[in-house]
């Protein structure tokens, strides 16, 4: 660990962390651009880097993008990413009441402490969890992936059935091409270019970047003018820190735990901890009108979810969020298989990710405080200037992978599919996570059946896999019942409306 930490101070490594955090904050601050988009777009560039530098850059972008969303949420009343929606509720009213510096300062400090607390969990829990995960058999792993799929579908997007459809569609997309177990060609529909299947990067860039560009082009409108900004109150005092620390600690723990759950990302963490903070507050009536506690809860939790989400990625190879699914793709591109064996096969990468998460947190804190005025300016750049630039980056980035236009057309196709799916209320999170997990699930199921000579019974009788499948079924039934009850309840409808 110490070696990895010292390694981050190597000049090029540090440069990657600075560039990652800096660009992550910018993208987070601009409404409509997301961290997933930035990381997916950066993947082609990382081909030319060592795995160590590539992971440093991407993890730093992840940390920066979550925090950057705070700026536009507070000053523009437009959350830079879904994770900052809850911050907008109190950040904007507080900034509008003449305290923009304080609103941002509280958010930045809460983000910093949230990241640090989650980092502790990341550093302490990842190795023990991966040691436990080594004992998982193929059926246990398959059951774990199934449980993750159900969890993802039930939490993201709201509509459970549509979440499952998106997840299974993501899985279906991985099947064309050569069967990885037997070597036979399958489901190519006469398209010879599909021999290698739909490649990860064109799919990711299409789904996250191109579909987002289409959505932005459809509704390009003038942004509200940012509030007049003053630095007053930007630096949180010790007195404030003592006052807010119980809230920071509670929200960070919530953020970390929610982050650990597969596929459940920063937005759920932030919303959940906001609600808990309101329940625990002595002044719950202030929430929604510029409550400092509300900003602290939301920002500590959404930043803590980053560290939390990295735990299942490193220990199990299961993405804790959509961005983690892309990071899994990045590791695979560099021939690194995320999962329990990573600690023995690529320990330097695992410890580097953990060390970079810590260093990037400090860099994020310094850059947010030092360059806040610059970021506010950037957040106001009109989208019409950015969208064509991003589109050209997508085209050239994907083309450069293999110098083939098939990848570019694939990207465009998945961009259109992603755009249409989102318009029809299908969430893209389960799609990407299904896409990333499908190969693992299929391989483990087939491997398990080979061990048992085709007997499927151990999947349901082995204690661990049976428990995981039971959890998946309970989650499925519970989500469907909750959804039905919510729709039928007039009180819930009224609360939702509020």
């Amino acid at each position: 660990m110490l070696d990895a930490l010292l390694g981050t101070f190597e000049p090029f490594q540090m440069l990657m962390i600075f560039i990652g955090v800096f660009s992550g904050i910018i993208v987070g601050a601009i409404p409509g651009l997301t961290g997933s988009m930035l990381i997916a777009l950066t993947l082609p560039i990382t081909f030319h880097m060592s795995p160590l530098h590539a992971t440093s850059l991407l993890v730093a972008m992840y940390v920066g993008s979550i925090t950057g969303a705070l700026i536009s949420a507070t000053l523009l009343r437009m959350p830079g990413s879904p994770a900052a929606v809850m911050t907008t509720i109190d950040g904007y009213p507080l900034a509008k009441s003449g305290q923009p510096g304080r609103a941002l300062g509280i958010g930045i400090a809460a983000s910093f402490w949230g990241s640090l607390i989650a980092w502790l969990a990341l550093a302490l829990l990842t190795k023990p969890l991966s040691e436990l995960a080594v004992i998982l058999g193929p059926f246990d792993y398959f059951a774990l992936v199934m449980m993750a799929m159900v969890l993802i579908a039930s939490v993201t997007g709201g509509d459970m059935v549509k979440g499952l459809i998106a997840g299974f569609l993501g899985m279906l997309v991985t099947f064309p091409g050569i069967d990885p177990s037997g070597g036979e060609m399958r489901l190519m529909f006469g398209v010879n270019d599909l021999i290698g299947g739909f490649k990860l990067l064109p799919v990711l860039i299409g789904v996250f970047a191109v579909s987002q560009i289409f959505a932005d082009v459809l509704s390009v409108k003038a942004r509200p003018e940012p509030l007049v900004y003053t630095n007053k109150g930007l630096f949180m005092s010790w007195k404030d820190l003592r006052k807010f620390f119980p809230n920071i600690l509670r929200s960070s723990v919530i953020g970390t735990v929610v982050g650990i759950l597969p596929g459940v990302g920063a937005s759920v963490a932030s919303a959940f901890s906001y609600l808990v903070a309101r329940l625990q507050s002595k002044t719950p009536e202030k929430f929604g009108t510029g409550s400092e506690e509300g900003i602290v809860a939301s920002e500590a939790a959404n930043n803590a979810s980053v560290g939390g989400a990295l735990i299942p990625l490193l220990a199990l190879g299961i993405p804790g969020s959509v961005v983690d699914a892309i990071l899994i793709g990045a590791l695979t591109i560099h021939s690194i298989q995320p999962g329990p064996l990573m600690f023995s096969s690529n320990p330097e990468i695992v410890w580097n990710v953990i060390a970079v998460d810590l260093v990037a947190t400090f860099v994020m804190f310094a850059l947010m405080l030092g360059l806040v005025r610059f970021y506010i300016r950037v957040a106001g750049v009109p989208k019409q200037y950015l969208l064509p630039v991003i589109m050209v980056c997508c085209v050239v980035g994907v083309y450069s992978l293999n110098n083939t236009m098939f990848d570019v057309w694939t990207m465009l196709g998945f961009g259109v599919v992603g755009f249409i799916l989102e318009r029809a209320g299908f969430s893209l999170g389960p799609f990407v996570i299904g896409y990333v997990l499908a190969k693992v699930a299929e391989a483990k199921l087939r491997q398990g059946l080979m061990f048992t000579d085709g007997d499927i019974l151990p999947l349901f009788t082995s204690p661990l896999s049976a428990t995981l499948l039971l959890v998946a079924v309970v989650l499925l039934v519970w989500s469907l019942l909750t959804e039905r009850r919510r729709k039928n309840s007039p009180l819930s409808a009224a609360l939702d409306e509020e």
Partner: protein
Amino acid sequence: MQYFQTLEAWVTAGLLVVSTAFLVSSTGLPAGTFDPLGPGAAPEMVSGLLCLLCLTVLIRGALRAAAGVDLEEEAAVDIIKREGVESPYSLAIFFVLLLGYLLAFQWQLGHFIAITIPFVFVTILLLGGLSLRNGIIALAIATGLSVGFFYVMTGFFTIRLPGI
């Protein structure tokens, strides 16, 4: 039927067609040589489940439409449509421009810089409106991006772009 319900029905029907095609094709795959499942089992399971789920959404949507029930998301999309916040014409023109750009890229109709400048320039004017200020900014961005990108990609990353 409202806009959202119609869109949901069309998209789900499309997904049903795709998953049925996958289901039919995967049932025709040979049995496995080394393992009991073979290459077709996983696609069969996934596409079969997908068919069932799509049918569920279609039936649910039809029942909802018959009962005249509005979902919150339906209402939101319909309000946006009514208020005219969205501009489908901009999207359509942008899509055509993009297709033109990609075809020029594929058929190498010109140098990378020569095909990228018009695409970026026209797109910025399309999205930002026609004005002298916008035109100057668009030209500066289009030229800077195309030239910069070309030299970085070909010189630094040794990527073969049209025009080399």
